[in-house]
């Protein structure tokens, strides 16, 4: 480790004028830059030093300061700190330089900032609206501090301009926002000539509920229920990420037992979702048998969750400081016995699934997401690991009890539907192993810590959690008297959705549901 200069050192060698801002701490190095320098340094971080753009967000400084701040967060490999580039727009200045032309992953972030804050990314190749659909009045940017949180705006006329492909025999197939199955709301526009897909355009944000603004109305310690409802299937992932950020702000030392219980809950959540997905992928190839078996096993896990915590989705368990309820030794034994039974059950099913040649034929080489495309989009989590992106927060930046529970990361490189299913299958076994490990090593002790101090206004914290879909990021900025000034939520779906547009090209429309299921991204977590 000592031989190789850290990313921060490498960056400062390339740009000697740079100096890290005041104590960054927390595994992060922050640089304050002006707009002119920023694109070049961001490009260097991304292309030369292989930094992944993990998050790009804006903060309205009002009422304390008449500024907007833009934050660019880059992630590197295991053991490297985050690099955060910050640039300030003073007063009425609403223009900033877009980095999308050189860093593709920034495209949705910059459009989101434009919609929600009214800051304009100059040089962005696509300035259509993203979050605010066309019927939102011009010039209304809901995350600006001057806009009230509770006033619904009027509607205006407007039409979204899809990208069109024209030519003989090319036609468009619109799908959504209300779909055929029991799934969430989103719109997909296919351009096809015959059966193969030439282009897919994903249009989301139908479910935009204004969550980030709702956070700003809450107190730091009271917003956990809201975090749980960002994306219902990732209740633990989101609430844990939120709690960790708040604990940093309040200086809470989370007791070891609570950290183990958090890992236990997170693995239980991963388990039931992955089981559902393996079944769902089989079902979308009309192979109903594994779907039925997976549905049955998933239901047993949901009932286990219910017995353990009183909620099938593990709601109400996480709190700032630890967890709200302890789990007795008997309950942990019950959990381990149940997941052991499920592992034996699932292993039998797995051998049936992988032995089916016609299923394999359908899954292989379908919906290929190449490593290059995945990298360009900053794809993460299950989808990334199936395309050879070796990244897992549990290993790279251990949180909860993962510093004492090493995780074996599943990694495949083909990037097709089958690889994504294999990642999930491997992770099911790994989660069960971790749950057994937790029973063996869980310490006794208290389950919640107390706040050490109140955060200063403007103090902020970043937290990352490997939810079952991938890396969940929360940035929480404290306001006055324990209020939240800003809470930026980033579900992995936000980065992964644009990548699906590339994975489907050349596939036939009937395979789209299968590919979509193999990604299984959250609409709610994306739309916020």
């Amino acid at each position, binding site marked *: 480790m000592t031989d190789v200069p850290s990313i921060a050192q490498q960056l400062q060698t390339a740009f000697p004028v740079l100096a890290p801002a005041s104590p960054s701490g927390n595994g992060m190095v922050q640089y304050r830059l002006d707009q002119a320098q920023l694109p070049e340094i961001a490009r260097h971080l991304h292309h030369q030093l292989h930094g992944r753009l993990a998050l790009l967000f804006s903060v309205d400084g009002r009422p304390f300061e008449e500024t907007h701040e833009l934050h660019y967060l880059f992630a590197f490999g295991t053991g490297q700190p985050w690099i955060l580039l910050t640039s300030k727009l003073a007063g009425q200045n609403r223009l900033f330089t877009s980095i999308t032309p050189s860093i593709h992953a920034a495209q949705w972030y910059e459009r989101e900032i434009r919609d929600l804050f009214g800051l304009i990314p100059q040089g962005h190749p696509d300035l259509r609206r993203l979050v605010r659909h066309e019927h939102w009045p011009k010039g209304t940017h809901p995350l600006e501090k001057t806009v009230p949180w509770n006033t619904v705006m009027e509607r205006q006329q407007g039409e979204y301009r899809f990208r069109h492909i024209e030519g003989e025999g090319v036609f468009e197939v619109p799908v959504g926002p209300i779909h055929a199955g029991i799934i969430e709301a989103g719109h997909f526009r296919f351009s096809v000539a015959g059966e193969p897909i030439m282009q897919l355009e994903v249009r989301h944000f139908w479910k935009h509920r204004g969550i980030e603004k*709702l956070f700003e109305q809450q107190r730091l310690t009271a917003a956990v229920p809201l975090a749980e409802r960002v994306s*219902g299937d990732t209740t633990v992932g989101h609430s844990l990420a939120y709690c960790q950020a708040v604990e940093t702000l309040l200086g809470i030392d989370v007791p070891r037992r609570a950290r183990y219980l958090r890992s236990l809950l997170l693995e239980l959540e991963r388990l039931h979702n992955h089981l559902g997905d393996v079944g769902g992928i089989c079902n979308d190839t009309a192979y109903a048998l594994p779907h039925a078996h997976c549905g*049955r096993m998933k*239901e047993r896990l949901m009932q286990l969750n219910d017995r353990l915590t009183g909620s099938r989705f593990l709601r109400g368990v996480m709190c700032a400081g630890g967890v709200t309820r302890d789990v007795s030794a008997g309950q942990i034994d019950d959990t381990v016995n149940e997941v052991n039974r499920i592992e034996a059950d699932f292993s039998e099913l797995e051998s049936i699934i992988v032995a089916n040649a016609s299923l394999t034929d359908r899954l292989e080489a379908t919906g290929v997401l190449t490593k290059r495309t995945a990298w360009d989009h900053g794809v993460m989590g299950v989808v990334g690991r199936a395309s050879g992106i070796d990244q897992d927060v549990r290993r790279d930046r251990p949180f909860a009890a993962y510093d004492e529970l090493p995780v074996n990361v599943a990694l495949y490189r083909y990037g097709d539907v089958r690889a994504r299913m294999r990642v999930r299958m491997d992770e099911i076994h790994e989660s069960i192993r971790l749950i057994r490990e937790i029973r063996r090593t869980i310490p006794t002790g208290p389950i919640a810590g107390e706040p050490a101090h109140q955060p200063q206004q403007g103090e902020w914290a970043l937290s990352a959690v490997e939810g079952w879909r991938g890396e969940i990021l929360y940035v929480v900025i404290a306001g006055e008297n324990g209020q939240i000034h800003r809470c930026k939520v980033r579900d992995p779906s936000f980065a992964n959705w644009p990548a699906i547009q590339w994975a489907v090209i050349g596939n036939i429309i009937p395979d789209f549901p299968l590919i979509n299921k193999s990604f299984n991204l959250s609409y709610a977590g994306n739309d916020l």
Partner: protein
Amino acid sequence: MFRILKKSLKTGVVTGQHPQAIQPSSEPLAPEVRKKASAFNRSLTIREVDTGSCNACEMEMNALTNPVYDIERFGIHIAASPRHADALVVTGPVTVNMEKALKDVHRQTPDPKLVIALGDCAINCGLFKGSYAVTGPVDRLIPVDIRIPGCPPRPADILKALTDIQERP
């Protein structure tokens, strides 16, 4: 082949292996709703519409189709199009962006139809009440016949509420 058969035999029948519905799942049906519902007798086709839920309600609706709850045994089917549906099951607080889609879907569903608001968000907007992006609850935009509370309601509760509809007056 033998492996598949062995697995199925070993598993046996799992239908009904779930805890019973604990809470009275919804308020008693109003007489006019019961009259309207009587047309559907033992065959009810539902269309699920998500208007901004956190997707937990969707997961519980999906759970109803698994072998444990097996909703089809009660003659309840899930249709792919509102045009084939007798009842709309609406989840979520109705976002500004979904408002028009919800009204469209309601118009496209043939009469007579039932509207079921599923989950606290659909009934009273839940935690999203008041947000600049939410115009619900559902009954502000379309008439609601049946309400199933919970965040999210357990599948057993949903099942009970849906089979209640089929009870003869």
